[in-house]
Structures are given as structure tokens and as C-alpha cells.
């Protein structure tokens, strides 16, 4: 019998060595072992007491649903409790998680808005998050509306110090940019990709023009073409309820989900000739090149390889 490598299981060091979000800590039940899939591998986690967490590769000695803690011989996985999520790594994390300075500002609302399962690859979800051209067609009447379809040129650069991808000077006409909007306006965006599977977007707060609201998309890659996407908000908003703000973000993501699940191939092709980019796709073009340069091969079709 020939033992075949399971293509679902990630062997790509560039991805394994990263921190990956597991679940929102607000939804972890104390004293019960839970299990999920990360990069094609089963991972168990447990909160032994409030704010104390452990995670390990699933082991029959610590069954799901029990309170049994892994024995001292079980190799634990590294843990981070950051931005409202439990993070882990299946490799050797090369440093700390990216910083979001806004998160710690005292007057901000930090909200876990949604966790949504999508049958797509993590890079397809990130690329969709960076994209403005789809607003009038996918988020009609909210983030965009015909005939205001033009994507004016914006700047994209890779920050030399942090090796993060930034798209700046992005402008788009939006009928209802946020839950707090009352009228259509040209909205300025800044996008930041600090991690192959995580992105942040900064947009002017409708309630305080001098400050930026932050929306984050942290993707857990379940397998190469399946994800659970976490949405996090860090807002200047002292009037709306959490559930109102969450419902707005969830309805936006629910509009993206059927698009993401109808892209073929599901893995993001990194070859520039696999799809047809246009000027307004500068951030996507840069993102694909950046993934190539980082050596990412999981969730993508690497350059020089066809879809078969």
C-alpha cells in the first residue's frame, strides 16, 4: 500500500511558523476540551480557568468534551491571547504577532463581530477584503452603488521595515459606509496586510473625522480551500449597540460569501497570467507577488504550476 501525503495538511514553513487565530476568547467555555482544524491538522484547546488557555495537537488521551488536561508529556502548542482571540502556531513562531496600536486606545469599542465559515482559500478571502471594485455589485446600496463604479488610482507599497503590504490613498463613493452613516460620501480607505491570512482596513470614522475606525479580518485556514473568518472592529462609536454593529458587518460578509464560494480555482493563482488584473487591482497584484516572495505555497497555486 502506498502512503500518500494528504494535500490538506500544511507542510509550508512560511505558513506553519505564523500565528493563527483559533477562536474568539469570549466564546471559550471554561473547563471543556474543544477541537478544531487548523491547516489540515486537528488542534485541541482548553481554558483551565478564566484567561488561562492551553492548546495541543489532538490526542486521544484528552477527548473532546471532557475537562481532561493534557499530560505533561503532551507537547503543547504556543499560545497568544490577543485582540480577543486565542492564537497558536504549528511551527516555530518567528516573533510576536503584528501590532494594532488603536486596539489599546481607552475610548475605543473593540468588538468581535462575526465568525463565518467559507468554502474558499484564505488568500481569496484576503484579496476580496482588499478590493474596492466589487462594492457596487456585491454590496449594492451600502458600500457602493452604480453608476459610481470607478476605482481611482491609489498607492501600494511593501513597508521595508515591517515587510507589511500597505494600500493608501484609496477613495470610493459609498452610499452607507458604516452602521453610523446617514448619507453617501467619498470614503478614504487604508489597507494593511501584516500577515498572509490577516488584513486590516482603516477608514475615517463617521463620528470623528480626525480618527480612523479599524476593521480586521483574521482568517483561520481550516484546510487549503476552507476557512473560518473572524471579523474584529475597533471603533469610535458610543451610541450603537454591539448587536446593531455586528449585524451590519455580518450582512456585509454574507454578501461576500457566495462570491468567494463561486471562484474557480479556489486556491489563489500566483502566476500573473492565470487571471486578468487591471489597474485597480494593484493591491491584489502586490499581494500575490508578496505571497510568492514570502514563499507561501498553502492556499495558493504557486507560480509556474498550472491548475492541474
Amino acid at each position, binding site marked *: 500500500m502506498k502512503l500518500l501525503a494528504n494535500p490538506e495538511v500544511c507542510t509550508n514553513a512560511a505558513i506553519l511558523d505564523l500565528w493563527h487565530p483559533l477562536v474568539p476568547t469570549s466564546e471559550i467555555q471554561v473547563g471543556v476540551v474543544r477541537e478544531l482544524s487548523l491547516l489540515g491538522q486537528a488542534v485541541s484547546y482548553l481554558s483551565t480557568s478564566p484567561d488561562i488557555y492551553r492548546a495541543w495537537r489532538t490526542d486521544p488521551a484528552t477527548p473532546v468534551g471532557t475537562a481532561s488536561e493534557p499530560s505533561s508529556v503532551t507537547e503543547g502548542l504556543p499560545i497568544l491571547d490577543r485582540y480577543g482571540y486565542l492564537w497558536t502556531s504549528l511551527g516555530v513562531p518567528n516573533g510576536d504577532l503584528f501590532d494594532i496600536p488603536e486596539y489599546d486606545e481607552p475610548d475605543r469599542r473593540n468588538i468581535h463581530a462575526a465568525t463565518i465559515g467559507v468554502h474558499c482559500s484564505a488568500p481569496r478571502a484576503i484579496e476580496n477584503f482588499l478590493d474596492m471594485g*466589487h462594492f457596487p455589485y456585491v454590496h449594492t446600496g451600502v458600500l457602493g452603488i452604480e*453608476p*459610481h*463604479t470607478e476605482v481611482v488610482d491609489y498607492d501600494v507599497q511593501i513597508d521595508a521595515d515591517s515587510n507589511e503590504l500597505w494600500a493608501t490613498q484609496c477613495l470610493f463613493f459609498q452610499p452607507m459606509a458604516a452602521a453610523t452613516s446617514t448619507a453617501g460620501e467619498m470614503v478614504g480607505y487604508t489597507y494593511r496586510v501584516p500577515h498572509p491570512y490577516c488584513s486590516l482596513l482603516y477608514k475615517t470614522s463617521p463620528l470623528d473625522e480626525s480618527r480612523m475606525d479599524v476593521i480586521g479580518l483574521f482568517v483561520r485556514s481550516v484546510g487549503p480551500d476552507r476557512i473560518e473568518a473572524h471579523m474584529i472592529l475597533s471603533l469610535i462609536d458610543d451610541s450603537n449597540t454591539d448587536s446593531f454593529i455586528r449585524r451590519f458587518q455580518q450582512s456585509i460578509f454574507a454578501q461576500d460569501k457566495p462570491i468567494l464560494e*463561486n471562484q*474557480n480555482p479556489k486556491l489563489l493563482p500566483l502566476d500573473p497570467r492565470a487571471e486578468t488584473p487591471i489597474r485597480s487591482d494593484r493591491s491584489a497584484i502586490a499581494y500575490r507577488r508578496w505571497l510568492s516572495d514570502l514563499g507561501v505555497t498553502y492556499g495558493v497555486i504557486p507560480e509556474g504550476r498550472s491548475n492541474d
Partner: protein
Amino acid sequence: MTESLMNLWHPIASAEDLPYRHIFQGQLLGRELAVWRADDDFVNVWENRCLHRGTRLSIGRSDGLELRCQYHGWRYANRSAGCTYIPAHPADAPARTICNRTFPSVERYGLIWSGEEPTGEPPEIAALENAETLLLRNIAVNAPLNLVLGHLANYRFSITGDPDNLATTSMDYQDGCSLSLTATCDGKKSTVVFFVQPVDSNRSVIRGVLSNSPEGAERLLTLRHHSAELSRLRDIVELEALDGPSLEPMVATIEQVPIALPEITTPSGRKAALRVQVLRKWATAEGVVGLELESIGEPLPTHQPGAHIDVHLPNGLVRQYSLTNAPGEGSLYRLGVKLEADSRGGSACLHETVKEGDVLAISEPRNNFPLRRDAVKTILIAGGIGVTPLLSMAQTLRNNKLDYELHYFAQTDGHLAFPEVLNELGEAVVLHLGLSPDETSQALTALLAGPQPAMHIYVCGPGPMLEATRRIASEADWPDEAIHFEYFKNTIEVDSSSSFEVSLARSALTLEVPSGKTILEVLRDNGIALMSSCEQGACGTCEVTVIEGEPEHQDVYLNDSEKLAGQRIMTCVSRAKSPRLVLDI
């Protein structure tokens, strides 16, 4: 085996799967297909993915002429599958290379036939020719083609639909994907032909066609009978397939997008790549003939509203004419040609010499007058025969349900070209007949009374009218980028007396442009083939980016602010004020 299946025609849908405006998702040999019927009844079979980001086109929308992708609103034309519009860049004409992969289609026996690379024609079955056929409910089976065919060979059925009265059945033929069975009972005969569609290695669709079509209650009974018998067959086949070897899914290769060739390697200047036949020629207005051109080879490439073609005339002249029809409207180009009083032989040749049935050489369409489809309102202003590109735009705006007006200035109503199209456009058309130059200026002043945001103006007509429009618009503070002009010809007197030097940055070549020669000619003489069309500074085809030096603009294509910026030059007429120009070629 797959290799030979690639060269056969297969049924991929029932004709009734394709009501107008619906996009059907099909699959053949592992490849997903988007199948849709246009308003002219042409059945489009396209690879089911948008070239931009791979989104399934079957979740998009059809307006009967174009298919719109649901993700970014890219539009693809009926028949050619060429991209006609990219909403993120409304001012730009999409590159002609952006064209979806298409597969041939034929409708036969109530089925839509297609294939990867089919040869010849779909099968002709004698029993189904000239017969009142009845299409059975199609049955999808999770089993390979051969297994399904093997079981179908033993299929038994009743002629009347009575399950207790199964007839004696004989096989008429069987090939790699289909078989025919004839049942005889009490002297009556009925033939069923089964075509099996290979969806994937382990998935097939049985599409049965009956050679006779019973009426009334018997029809329903017959359909139910076959549905029940085939469902039973499916259950048996699927169980057997579960025990069979597991098959790898078929992989349909997605073609890479073509490389956009750098300008320098583009084949030379005025190329007449297409051959067309004059399908129809008629007098559409006083001194204007309409011409409908149909391809005699490959289907005509997609055109966009505002596009023009070069027509290579039998007398050796080359003339540019705008296409008047909207994209997606059949595979033909429609032109309107006015007989010019001072014709140097171009319009006279088309009026007098060219006849229906004649073959002409034309270029592929080029679009230097692209239509934005993101304006809140669009005003089209036509003077005389200048209506031609604006008619294509008006029909496109109408099809897309966008707000527009077409103002048509003409001498009399006898001078109105394509009155049938104007009738169709209805109230959006405003006629201005028999106005003097002063009255025309007054009407234009009223039309351009105040610039409004997100409003765009497109003007085409005789030189003096365009100059008047330019002046009036500028006095009314319209921004240059909101007013779009199409000149018939350059109204500026071209001075070619200067001499200067051009350096080609990318080719590391320096050339001398002597007086009496154009930059374009000097480049051609040195083996650098730029695209060109009108060669008189009106169409914008031979544009090149200026890196250094001060151009002396002599064209009417660039607007004033573009000329002032000095970053682009029309190489067919414009020259240099500085001793040297550095060009980006």
C-alpha cells in the same frame, strides 16, 4: 478514451433549460460551462469563469445582449464573449485580448450540443429526423459513462406508458456515447435514443429522446413511465459504481491569459485583418448609405460603443467609419457612410462601386472614443453623419437602462440616418432640424448651460460644430474630462516643416525626423511598427508617451489639458518644439 470524447459533440443542456435572460450552469468532461441564450437566439457556451478573478459567470446576469459578471460588473458580449466594459475604469476601452473561452453550440432534437474540440456535426439520427420528438426528463447519475451505457442497453419500456405492458425491445445501434432502442408491441413501434453526457469521470446525464410524441393523457403517462424506469436504472447503476474502482475527477485545463504584447512588437500600422461581405446596403437618409458587414471567416471581434474600423476600399484608399450598432447585437458591423461633396474617392466608392455581396478588407475595431457607463446622465450631441458612433452609444445606454439624451442636429428629417433606430430609442432622441450656425450655437449653449457632477458629454460632428461646442463648454466651465470629442478629420493645418531628433528610451535608438516626414513614418522606416489608423491626428491610435522634451501638438485628439501636460503625443502629425523628444518605446 477521454481524448476521443474531446473531439465529439455532446448534449450539455435541454433547449428548455435556456429561457431568455437565464444563465444555465452545465458541465462537460470536468469543465464547468455557462450557457445562455441571447435575444437573437444565439446559444453561448462559455467557460464558467470570469477572466478577471475566476468568478462563475453563471451567477451573473444577462441582459439578452451581454453577460455581466456578478463580482465586478465586467460585461461580455453575446457571440464573441469579448469584454466590452470594465466599470472600475469607465474611461478606458478594455483590451481586445480580454475574451472568454467559448465552445461551439448547435441545437438539435431539443438538446443543446457542444464539445471541447468537436469535429464535424452533432450526430444525425434517422429515427429522430422529421419526427415529432419528445424529450424525456434528464437523469443525472453518479457513475461513469460506460457503466451507464451498459445498463441502458438492457433498458425495457412500454409504448403506451403502462408499466405492466413492457414491449419487446431491439437495439438499433450503440456507439461510445449513445444508443437507440426500438420497442414493438401490438404492431406499434416506438424508438428511444439515449445520449449520455459525460459530465465528469464518475458523473453522467442520461438524455433520452423519443421518436414519437403522444398526446394528452398518454403523453404524461409515457413521461412518468420513462422517469420511473430510468430512476430505477439509476439506483442500480449507482450501487454498481460504488463497488467499482474510484476514479480521479477529470481536470479541465484553464488556459493562461495571453501576454499583452509590448507596442513595439505589434504588427505594423494599417492592417486589414478581417474579411467581410456586404450583407445589406441601403439608402438610410439623404446622401447616406447604410452598410451591414458580415464575417466570411471567423466571427467578428467584439466592438465597444464608440469604436471604428478601417475599411480598405477596392480603389486602394483606406477610410475610417464608426460602428453604429451596439455590442452583442448579432455578429455584424453596421456603418453609415455619407457621400462627401469633395470626396477624394472614399465615400464615392462605397456609394457607387461597392455592392451587396462584395467582399471588403477591414481592420479589427479600435476604440478611441470609449463610453463611460458610470455617468449619472450622458448627453450625446450629433451633427449630421456624426451620429454614427453616438447611435452605438445610445443603444448601449438604453440596453443598460442608463439615463441619456441624444441630441441630433440635421438639415431636415430626410437627412436623419437610421430612422428605425431613432424610433426605437424613442423619447431619448431630441431633434434639432434646419438650424443656422448661430441657432446651433444657441441650442448648444442651452444644452451646456451648467456643468453638473457625474455628467458626461459626447460630441461628434463637423469641425466647426465641434469647435463651437468646445468653446461653449469651456465658457460654461465644463471640465475637459467631462466632454469627449470625436473628429472626422483633423481641422488643424498640419505643419511638417520642422526637423528634430527622437530618442527611443526602451529601444536605445536615436532617429532624425526631417522636415516633410512624420515621427510615425520615421519609426516605420526603421522597422518599428506602431499601430495607426487615421494618420491625421484625429483617432488617437498612434499615441506614444513622452518622457522628455516639448511636443508640438497638431492633433485634435488630445484635449487642452492633456496637450499642456505634454506627456502624450500623436506620432502621425505632432512634432517637437524642443530639439529632441524622448519617447517611451
